[in-house]
């Protein structure tokens, strides 16, 4: 607690300095609150997201004509608000739904942010967005995929990422294609943690396969941040499913990879639902023993000189990491929010909400491979889409499906180590 207070005081001091000098030099600042896991089991994700948002702020607040059609890149600041700068107030959710809720409350009531952005884990997004809804502040979510988040009848909640129902369809189609090429995909096992993300995504996927007439053969649950998963891996080894779909955060994803190696178990097809498997630290830690794992993504770096490649370079310079799908979706979401504030021409919550509702971005205005950004009545981006990537060499993911977007053909079976 002590540390937190000290850093809180430092932040406050820094902010008051910023405000004092800002009042003279810069006419206007738009504050956006970002709730991210800066500590806890997914702290690496929070650190990467922070770097990504800092790059996004740089792109918005400074002139970047090289980024072409990307909204807000060309000129410095938000033109709609007389060149106002965007400033992100970072808040740590500790990976904990209750903490996320408190942070949302603090950002809205103390920091008076114009909008809230976050919160990575679906379970934390669930609670923190409820606070924003109560206070009538726009909440933009760019990476939580639990389907129920947009089924709550919220008026202030907007989500840019493809969600569980979208990938469930991608997974069924992908596996059907694999089956057509001769792979065995009859028995499918789901492995997931007990968080909001794990259970709800597992449910959605299991429903999607059931609707296709192929019920899930095995459902293996485990507690998040597990200390040991030997039991779960042995269960899989015993039942021998053809396909395993992993729904795990980074820490557990690493532990599963290590345990599968030590117990010498490889399924024919290992398909991961993003999250931990997209974390660069997963690839560094156990990529070499997870060769051939499939994953979903909406990110493709593109040819050099393209806006996405330039952004990937900027991100790498800032964080020292390769750009991955998660930070890409976060940056994309942040741009959508900033664009809405710019079009609203005001920090009035109702005007930002109206601008978000009117959002209609085309694929060429995006850095991610979505078909566009357009929200339905529930606040879900109906044009979000994704593809399947594979960690063929244990170092870099390449897109393998659908064929139209594939850099390489998928290789089977799962190689492991």
């Amino acid at each position, binding site marked *: 607690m002590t540390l937190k207070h000290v850093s809180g005081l430092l932040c406050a001091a820094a902010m008051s300095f910023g405000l004092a000098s800002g009042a003279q030099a810069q006419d206007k600042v738009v504050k956006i609150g970002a709730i991210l896991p800066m500590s806890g089991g997914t702290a*690496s994700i929070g650190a990467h997201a922070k770097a990504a948002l800092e790059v996004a702020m740089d792109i918005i607040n400074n002139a970047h004509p090289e980024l072409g059609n990307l909204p807000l890149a060309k000129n410095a600041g938000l033109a709609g608000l007389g060149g106002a700068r965007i400033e992100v107030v970072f808040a740590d959710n500790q990976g904990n739904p209750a903490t996320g809720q408190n942070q949302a409350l603090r950002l809205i009531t103390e920091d008076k942010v114009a909008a809230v952005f976050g919160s990575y884990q679906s379970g934390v997004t669930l609670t923190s967005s409820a606070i924003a809804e109560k206070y009538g502040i726009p909440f933009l979510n760019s990476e939580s995929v639990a389907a129920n988040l947009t089924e709550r009848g919220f008026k202030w909640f907007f989500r840019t990422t493809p969600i569980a129902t979208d990938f469930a369809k991608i997974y069924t189609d992908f596996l059907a294609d694999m089956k057509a090429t001769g792979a065995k995909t009859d028995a499918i096992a789901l492995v997931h943690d007990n968080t909001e993300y794990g259970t709800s995504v597992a449910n959605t996927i299991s429903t999607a396969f059931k609707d296709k007439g192929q019920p899930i053969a095995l459902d293996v649950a485990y507690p998040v941040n597990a200390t040991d998963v030997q039991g779960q891996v042995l269960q899989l080894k015993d039942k021998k499913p053809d396909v395993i779909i992993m729904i795990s955060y980074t*820490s557990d994803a690493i532990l599963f990879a*290590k345990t599968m190696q030590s117990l010498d178990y490889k399924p024919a097809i290992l398909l991961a639902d993003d999250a931990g498997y997209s974390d660069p630290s997963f690839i560094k830690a156990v990529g070499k023993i997870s060769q051939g794992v499939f994953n979903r993504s909406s990110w493709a770096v593109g040819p050099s000189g393209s806006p996405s490649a330039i952004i990937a370079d900027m991100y790498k310079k800032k964080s020292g990491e390769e750009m991955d799908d998660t930070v890409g979706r976060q940056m994309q979401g942040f741009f959508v929010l900033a664009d809405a504030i710019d079009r609203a021409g005001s920090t009035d919550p109702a005007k930002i909400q109206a601008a978000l509702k009117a959002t209609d971005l085309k694929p060429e205005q995006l850095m991610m491979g979505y078909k566009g950004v357009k929200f339905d009545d529930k606040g879900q981006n109906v044009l979000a889409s994704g593809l399947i990537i594979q960690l063929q060499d244990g170092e870099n993911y390449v897109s393998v499906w659908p064929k139209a977007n594939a850099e390489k053909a998928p290789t089977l079976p799962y190689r492991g180590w």
Partner: protein
Amino acid sequence: MSFVLVQVIVGGLLLGAVYALFSSGLTLVWGMMNIVNFAHGDFVMLGMYVAYVVYTLMGGGPLLGAPLATQELATLGVVVYFALIRDIMKGPMLAQILGTFGLALLLRYSVFWWFGANFLSMPQNIVGGTFAVAGLRIEASRLLAGVVALLVTLGLHLLLTRTSLGSRMLAVAEDATAAQLMGIRPDTMQAIAWAIAAGATGLAGALIANFFYIVPTVGETLGIVAFVSVSAG
């Protein structure tokens, strides 16, 4: 089916031995001084980082990393005793809880600051492999940790029951004032206890690092297991 059962039992026993190893330090401090060290999990984490740094800088695997982690953590234990524990022991229970909890946060976030939040993993080394005995798969790193755990537990038991140092430590635990009258310095004894406890914890961390991921918050995950094993056993 029975094969799976046997494999689960073997895996469980090895895991239990590892839990015993990293709980032994907590038991010692708790039993001798009646202090619950909330920073225990973070001592394990520091041991893991020492092993990682030793391996990546100098190579040598657990043969070099484990003794160094033991020594570094034992030193830290003495420093922590004189800088923090000696004073908060005089205070109320709340001071002990807040003091060691604060220490936990200080250690955890210092590591965050220095190493960042990324997950690390030991490169493959001499105990990184797995071997099979009659179809049962046994991880060398876990076996090593399990065997060392048993030896350390046995060693601590013998130290406390068979040596004069152990008797003196137990005397201080029983009645510090009376022990002082007998010419035993409680400060020294308790500092030694902290050195042993932290050293054993560092050793545990270095051995666990061979088969677990390394991240600044790993102490939270493992610390809970340590508290459960101490309370239950």
